[in-house]
């Protein structure tokens, strides 16, 4: 059994064995093994040439990763918390994202790190910053929900020839475990997965939302309602076909994410569904997301803030009764 965290570590380690151009760069990742210990042991295995501790400078780290990627290496840069990517934002959205389009220069790099709430991290250690990058052509955005996918996707991300933002959900790091197949496997970027078949309604989600949906689905089962769950896995490029197929099948859809509502990825999904599966819809397209506030610190507030299985269940009942 591997946790989500171990799966990512395994995936990174395998890619480093496989390709000498893969290296790690970030704050406190070498000697300390990273704030969440994702890179624990890597320094011993691969040496300080390939596991680079930097000063505290996110723009510097992202920029350096871009420069190394342009030279043909495959940097994997850690943000200690994905929230801090805002400090290296320009490098990501303007430098990394646009090189290929502008002058045909590939930037094969990964920026990865913990995101999401549920650990009382407060406004700056709990955010889900994926929507900013989802809106930036040239980037790929990956957000796995399970150990299997986390390992398969980090490996694909490292092999990808475009810049990938890899959002790990910190509340899943040690909470979800599963057996992983022995040896090398990858999960393709850009492919969603129907993680649960159903016929009455669809939940389209990713990351922590998958687990909320699964919990709600079991309760609904007992009520005789069958929920289909699509785990997007990759947010950009979006696997529209799998989403639309599910909606066309069930005719009812909930778009679920932990990120805040307005401007979140649910909007984009709703738009595609309202345009391309319009004739199939039997009910309004419903979104469940965190409300439009910063992530509050105090447990009672954070609990009220975060989506959860109960909130999914309530909306699902409403939707099925529509």
């Amino acid at each position, binding site marked *: 059994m591997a946790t989500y965290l171990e799966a990512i570590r395994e995936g990174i380690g395998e890619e480093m064995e496989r390709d000498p151009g893969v290296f790690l760069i970030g704050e406190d990742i070498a000697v*300390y093994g990273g704030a969440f210990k994702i890179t624990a042991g890597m320094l011993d295995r691969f040496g300080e040439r390939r596991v680079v501790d930097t000063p505290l400078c996110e723009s510097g780290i992202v920029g350096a990763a871009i420069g190394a990627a342009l030279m043909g290496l495959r940097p994997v840069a850690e943000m200690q918390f994905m929230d801090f990517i805002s400090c290296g934002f320009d490098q990501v959205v303007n430098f990394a994202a646009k090189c290929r389009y502008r002058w045909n220069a590939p930037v094969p790099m990964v920026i990865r790190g913990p995101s999401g709430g549920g650990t*009382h991290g407060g406004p700056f250690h709990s955010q889900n910053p994926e929507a900013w990058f989802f809106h930036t052509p040239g980037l790929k955005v990956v957000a796995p929900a399970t150990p299997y996918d986390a390992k398969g996707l980090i490996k694909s991300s490292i092999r990808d020839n475009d810049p990938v933002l890899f959002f790990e959900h910190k509340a899943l790091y040690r909470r979800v475990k599963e057996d992983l197949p022995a040896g090398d496997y990858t999960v393709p970027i850009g492919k969603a997965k129907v993680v649960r078949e159903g016929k009455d309604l669809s939940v389209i989600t990713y990351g922590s939302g998958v687990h909320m949906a699964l919990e709600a689905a079991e309760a609904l089962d007992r009520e005789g309602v069958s929920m289909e769950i699509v785990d997007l896995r990759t947010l950009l490029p979006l696997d529209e076909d799998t989403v639309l197929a599910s909606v066309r099948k069930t005719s009812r859809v909930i778009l679920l994410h932990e990120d805040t509502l307005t401007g979140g990825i649910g909007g984009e999904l709703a738009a595609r569904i309202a345009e391309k599966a319009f004739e199939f819809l039997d009910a309004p397209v419903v979104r469940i997301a965190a409300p*439009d506030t910063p992530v509050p610190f*105090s447990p*009672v507030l954070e609990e009220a803030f975060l989506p959860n299985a109960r909130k999914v269940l309530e909306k699902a009942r409403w939707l099925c009764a529509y």
Partner: protein
Amino acid sequence: MSVAQAVMNVAEGPGEEAHLSRRFLYYMSLMREVEDRIERKLYRQSKIVGGVYVARGQEAIPVGVGLALEPEDVVFPSHRDLAIYLMRGVGPRQIFAQYMGRIGGLTGGRDGNMHMGDLKLNIVAIISAIGACVPVAAGAALALKYKGTNNVAVCFFGDGATSRGDWHEGINLAAVQKLPLVLVCNNNQYAYSTPIEKQMACANVADRGPAYGIPAEIVDGNDVFAVHEAAQRAVAHARDGLGPYLIECKTFRMTGHSAHDPADYVPKELFAEWEQKDPIRRLLERMLDSGWIAPEDVSRHYDDLRKEVDAAVEWAEACPYPDPATLLDNVYEPRS
């Protein structure tokens, strides 16, 4: 007035230095006591929400600087400057409540631990992004100058912050505009696990002063008198309209980065070495040697302190959590 505070009120007799030393002692020991309680007790009892960053061994910095300021000077404490709050009248009870996510904390449970601010007290709450406060402090300094006051803005940060672009942009902007900004670096030689020599290729943070055309001095950060005097020079410089002034306080982080970090990456000898330089112990020795305080006053003081902190913890534990119905409030100014 609590009994503990009595230590500061020396009726007659002792001179200014003695008086100052008692104020140093009061705030440094209170900060230590509050942080010890948080880190060594409440955190282990799982009563604290979120991360715990304490400043054991570094108390001389906020205290030495803080007592050089006027109430109208605007402070930007970093995550190892708890005494700043105490000196501006935030009680230990509010601090414990803050760390427990209760309504009685300075942010009412919206944000946690050292992310506290209160505009009425001229304290600005930091955000997590290290170094981000430097340009903001420059802007506060700009406003103080704009308004024609002679107040200063004081920005605290660690050695780690000096690697951030914001640090550079903020200081440079303030220097060019000759803004009344005092920059206080807590150089505790580590940023999380990263030792100073992996952060910068120059020997001292103060070596960066010339890059901005501003004075920069190095001070023993474990000597509260030295810190205080440097702060007075810095504040005077800024008040006189001469622009920013940087103080680098050399000290050592006597803990892990936060309560969950055993700091295995720090050579053990360093802890032993710096233990000898503990700023509170040094202060106490000097006070006793100079007759600024009597031995029995010291033990009484610590007894009082413990009682004060006990009471504050009790208050905070009884304090309610915020009402989840308020979750959506105050994202924007409420419509009138």
